């Protein structure tokens, strides 16, 4: 479904991605793990058109993305939930969700999807008229995910959805990620919480200083001694 080939991204003089290649198949959850500054967010930004690669290719079902503007990429069915919530604070929860459906043409089904999001996140339904800036951190994360779902993406890019959430809420978010995937949405998941991410994902890539150093089925990557030592704290079952 999605293929990255030899992708190089620079921020001025900083070489953030040094020729990474990866693949996401339809229906999968693929996770991208790695330390701070490894280039995880940069990878997602390159896919969604927020940064331009200097060289390399990004293909979404044979169509090159690296030359398209961000709004066209969304219309092809890829939605990016950026790092750190980023809800529209002074707009209401409902308005945030409606903006999520911005790129869609099928106006009629948007209301139905709104209710589907409220079913997935009952908290959001209760607070639909409240301004998003007054939600708690966890609720804002739910809103950011719900907002992205309103675009009916075929591929969802999630950047650290569990960041800064209490353990119970982290479990809840990962359960929802699974549920979204069962509904037929392919997911590329960037996580610091490697432990949880490797449990929900089918396959995994490990990014280190802008290069992919490991890849494979999530269960195998989770067993890799190097990975366990560096990202899983050594003794995780």
């Amino acid at each position: 479904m999605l293929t990255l080939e030899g992708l190089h991204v620079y921020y001025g003089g900083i070489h953030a991605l040094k020729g990474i290649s990866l693949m996401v198949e339809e229906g999968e959850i693929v996770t991208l793990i790695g330390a701070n500054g490894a280039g995880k967010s940069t990878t997602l930004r390159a896919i969604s058109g927020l940064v331009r690669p200097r060289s390399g290719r990004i293909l979404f079902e044979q169509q090159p993305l690296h030359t398209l503007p961000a709004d066209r990429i969304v219309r092809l069915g890829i939605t990016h939930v950026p790092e750190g919530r980023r809800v529209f604070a002074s707009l209401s929860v409902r308005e945030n969700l409606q903006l999520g459906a911005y790129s869609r043409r099928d106006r009629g089904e948007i209301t139905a999807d709104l209710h589907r999001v409220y079913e997935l996140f009952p908290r959001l339904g209760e607070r639909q008229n409240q301004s998003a800036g007054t939600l708690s951190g966890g609720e804002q994360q739910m809103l950011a995910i719900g907002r992205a779902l309103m675009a009916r993406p075929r591929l969802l890019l999630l950047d650290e959805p569990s960041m800064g959430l209490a353990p119970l809420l982290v479990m809840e978010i990962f359960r929802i990620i699974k549920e979204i995937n069962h509904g037929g949405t392919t997911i590329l998941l960037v996580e610091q919480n490697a432990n949880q991410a490797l449990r929900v994902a089918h396959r995994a890539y490990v990014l280190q200083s802008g290069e992919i150093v490991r890849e494979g089925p999530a269960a195998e990557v989770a067993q890799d001694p190097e990975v366990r030592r560096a990202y899983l704290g050594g003794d995780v079952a």
Partner: protein
Amino acid sequence: MSANKGANMDENKNPVGGTSTRRTRWQKAIQPTVIVIAVVLLVALNLYIRRPDVDPYILGVLCLTGINMILAAGLNLINGFTGQFSIGHAGFMAVGAYTAALLTTYRNFPFLPATVLGALAAGMMGLVVGIPALRLRGDYLAIVTLGFGEIIRVVINNIPITGGAQGLVAIPGYTTFYWVEGWLILILVLISNLIRSGVGRCLLAIREDEVAATALGVDTTFYKVLAFTIGAASAGVAGSLYAHQIMYIDPSVFGFFKSIEILIAVVLGGLGSLTGSVLAAGLLTALPELLRGFAEYRMIVYSALLVLVMLIRPAGLLGQLEAVDILGWRRRPRPQWRTTGAGSGSDAFAAVQADLTTTDRLRGASK
């Protein structure tokens, strides 16, 4: 503007009153009164200016007030609602003023088409400046728009048809209170409808978080240029009204200080409040006149009042609230302060904590 960042620290506190959206008894009681007062004022104003013995000075001040309200409302669309910090508004006013005045003075155009063409010319200028400038952010955009305003002034100064620094004289005095009133109402209705439409939602989204808006597929450049163009066109209308009221214009009228004056009205009223812009433009135009009694201390008193208001209400008189919010006609609480979802205090704290646990693990693992 950055003073508001801290407001998001208390994430669950809604400065407007939590989740309670019920109208207060006070609001219920005051509603009919306010409508009656507003209607009575408007009717009284219209009756007053019909009197044969109407004071032309007061009439002039009233027209100027209306013109400044148009300017502030247009700039607020750009700065307050779309979050693009533009400070060259007087430049667009100049384009509208000169276009319309040249058409009426030398080509005998009637007032309405001349004003419409003035607005179009200013709007076109907004488009031309906006497309490259709106790629820039924050301070850079401010500098570019400031430079643009100055360029307009220099150009007008140096082309013969405008009369250069001597100014354009003998402009017909077409502007009446009714013209100002009509244009003001039209522009306010247009802008407030725009803000409440789907387009307005996109503008607000860009102000709140441009990256998130882009990630959702919103063509941010298009909407920014749109807001910029509409704001510029409304300044063009104000320019035409001004030229045909004073009947004489020269480039110095549309200088840096005029731009700042408009900006002050927008900030004082509240970035993101149309009601605030109208109130503040009214106050700022009327205040210097009312303070004439203070003679030479006038400007000191004026400045002191400004400083005082901004100290007491840093988000402006109304923040982001509109008349409908104050009257309780809109059932949605809005945070009064601008908040950003990302990077709020507790989020940043949590992020640091998350980082700490990872590094701790790494350290623990490697020993």
